[in-house]
């Protein structure tokens, strides 16, 4: 590849993937390394992304033959490929794992950011999605899973269908950018790929993700507040911002902003997340301070909860197999497996798609559970986790890295007796 070829690719797969990349391209006109892959010619022709690969209609595994060569050529020499799209549809469920295998076989770091179908889209779609997700997890270094049901607070009946899909696309986009930001981070503070793996490589885990953007003197707090209020970070069944983070073992925190992004701001974000996630939570921080001076800061929080086993073991065995396999064969395997055995796979994923089983295991936690499911319990305080009260919109008072507008007793973790309503 020539020196000017992009080192990092973002690949939108299927209709959802193309929509997400379009959203990205419209806001970042000069962005390079975007590629759309779809079997819907209409969607491709309407896309603003210039690099597109059309998959012919027909049997997916045969059709894939038509693009594997061009795709391999495009990404060869790249350092990372981040795939995005929606699982559950025929195209996304097949193409995403197939492309991941193809890229992985060239020794490229592969991550994926995928949306799981809404419940109202039907059981079959969810099963297909679960099967595809498992395949993705075995191949990719990291998979961020956006549970669409959680975005609408679990009650899609009250959410407009169009708005729900649009929210899903926007969330996938935000997670995609965060994931890419972490992978391509040029510093000064970096999140390593093994950090990403440790969070997003956990099979069966629910991805917790939030993004906030803000400008002005109180930008850190506002961005943090937006991020914590993201639906995926809200504790299931509660409106506590950032509540879902309580008890997670690792949080990836990525901050991007202008050069004046201060150490104190980073520290405040870290200590705030530490407070919410509880003691024992490791926070892996990445900081980009290379944006233009008037750019807002962007803060993303990524974590995962639940999940049965650690990522490393199954992955190393599987990944070691892949380079030996020719690009075509695993793709064909994927296709056959996707059709032949969706149900047992779906069963193994089921607890992931709903937060309830996780909570119930928390109650009857065994020692083995403590690392994962048990951590869904509330923190030490039954208070809204992010509280600056009347100082919410004012310039923060930060001394020695502590945000003094947050009540002292909260920062010290002191428990209070709550008022008894008459």
């Amino acid at each position: 590849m020539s020196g000017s070829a992009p080192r990092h690719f973002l690949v939108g797969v299927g209709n959802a993937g193309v929509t997400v990349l379009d959203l990205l391209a419209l806001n970042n006109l000069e962005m390079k390394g975007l590629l759309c892959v779809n079997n819907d010619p209409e969607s491709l022709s309407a896309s603003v992304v210039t690099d597109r690969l059309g998959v012919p209609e027909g049997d997916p595994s045969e059709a894939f033959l038509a693009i594997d060569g061009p795709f391999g050529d495009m990404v060869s020499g790249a350092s990372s490929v981040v795939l995005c799209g929606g699982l559950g549809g025929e195209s996304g469920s097949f193409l995403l794992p197939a492309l991941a295998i193809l890229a992985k076989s060239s020794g490229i770091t592969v991550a994926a950011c995928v949306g799981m179908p809404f419940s109202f889209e039907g059981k079959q779609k969810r099963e297909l999605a679960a099967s595809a997700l498992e395949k993705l997890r075995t191949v990719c270094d990291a998979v961020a899973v956006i549970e669409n049901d959680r975005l609408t607070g679990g009650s899609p009946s009250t959410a407009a269908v169009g708005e729900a899909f649009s929210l899903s696309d926007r969330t996938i986009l935000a997670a995609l950018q965060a994931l890419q930001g972490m992978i391509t981070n040029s510093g000064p503070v970096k999140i390593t790929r093994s950090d990403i793996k440790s969070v997003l490589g956990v099979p069966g885990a629910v991805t917790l993700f939030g993004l906030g953007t803000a400008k002005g003197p109180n930008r850190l707090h506002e961005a943090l507040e937006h991020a914590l209020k993201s639906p995926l970070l809200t504790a299931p069944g509660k409106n506590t911002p950032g509540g879902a983070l309580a008890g997670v073992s690792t949080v990836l925190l990525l901050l991007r902003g202008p050069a004046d992004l201060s150490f104190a701001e980073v520290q405040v974000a870290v200590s705030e997340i530490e407070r919410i996630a509880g003691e024992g939570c490791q926070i892996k921080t990445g900081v980009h301070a290379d944006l233009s001076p008037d750019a807002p800061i962007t803060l993303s929080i990524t974590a995962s909860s639940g999940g049965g086993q650690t990522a490393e073991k199954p992955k190393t065995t599987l990944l070691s197999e892949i380079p030996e396999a020719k690009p075509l064969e695993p793709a064909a395997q994927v296709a056959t497996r996707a059709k032949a055995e969706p149900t047992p796979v779906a069963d193994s994923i089921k607890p992931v798609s709903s937060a309830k089983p996780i909570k119930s295991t928390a109650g009857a936690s065994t020692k083995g559970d403590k690392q994962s499911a048990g951590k869904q319990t509330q923190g030490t305080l039954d208070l809204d986790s992010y509280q600056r009260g009347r100082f919410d919109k004012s310039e923060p008072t930060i001394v020695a890295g502590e945000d003094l507008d947050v009540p002292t007793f909260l920062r010290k973790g002191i428990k209070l007796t709550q008022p008894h309503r008459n």
Partner: protein
Amino acid sequence: MANEQIFVGLEIGTTKICVIVAESRADDQISILGVGETPSRGVRKGEIVDMATVTECVREAIVDAEEKTNVEIGNVWVAITGSHLRSFNNRGTHTLPHAGQIQQEDLDMVQANAKEVALPPPNTFLHTILQAYHLDGNRNVIDPLDSEGIQLEADFHIVHGIKTRITNHLRCVEELNLEIEDVVLSSLASAQVVVTQHQKDLGVLVIDIGGGTTDYLIYNDGAVRHSGVLAIGGDHITNDISVGLKLPIARAEMLKIQEGSATDPSESEVGVITLKNDPGFLGCDIDRRSLETIIHCRVKEIFELVRADIENAGGGMLGLLGAGVMITGGCAKLRGIAEVASEVFDQAVQVSTARNVGGALQTFENPQYSTAIGLTKYARLITKDAQPQGMLERITQGFGGLFKKGGR
């Protein structure tokens, strides 16, 4: 004119805007003629965030003071605070071309030399407060004027802040066609009335805890040694109560005033405070210990932060507080606050209000007026025809002069 003997102090605080009209008496004391006051809106952490609203509030307070005292207010002394204010000590040196009597211009020169420091670009000098002169190695010369010497040195306590923020503070006053005599650091103003000259000589720490900020100042050997502003005040206590006990801000404020105590909750009795139903508010029982825990944590932290800042400034100043610690400002009325301060500073602590002031008694007995009353006392000291009492009180240049000469 009688007006020459009348001084008006204006404090634009986070909780209230207060105008004190005082006249100087023959016995060198000041006598309060009246107080104009209005609740403050548009001020956060001691700094102006809504200029138009603050200007209107200042106008109301001035009108209130004029009505109560029958004095037409034209000139005011304004207190200033805010987390942007910083301070440091610096020594200026001036060598006379040849041995001779020290002239006023030599004193000016040594002060100018002390200010030859690079401030951050947006900042400007607010105060250059004289600490001591040294003449040819003779330390702590009270008044070197007309003495013979070659090498003149002087130590100053220098306060500076972000110019635009100071300007905004003053613009609210200028909009009302009031002339600003000078701008005075809040803690410096408060100290004028809450501590005596004797205490300043012995060494004293003055802590003024207001609604939005905590301002502190250390005197030793009669001179200002350190000053600081922490943008934490009574509003934070109220907010903590509101967050912790899930009460509306107004309810939390009332609870703080009526029942609040900074006492260590482990030493207090278990009890319940019943808040009655109100329109829009469902009554509840509050655990007294929880309330005290919230307040104690915050108050203790404020004192710990002040202590840490003083320790960081070096010079072992906390060991030189012969007269202990004086607490003033609205929060000084909080029960048990002196005990917490005493524990943190390991010093004798007193809650202090304005002293050696005559006139409306209730006014100067309330610590929340210390700054505004202090402004009038400060004004009295600065404008006295004769030299101020002792050279240590002489504040050689203030910020307000710049504004007057600037023709604004």
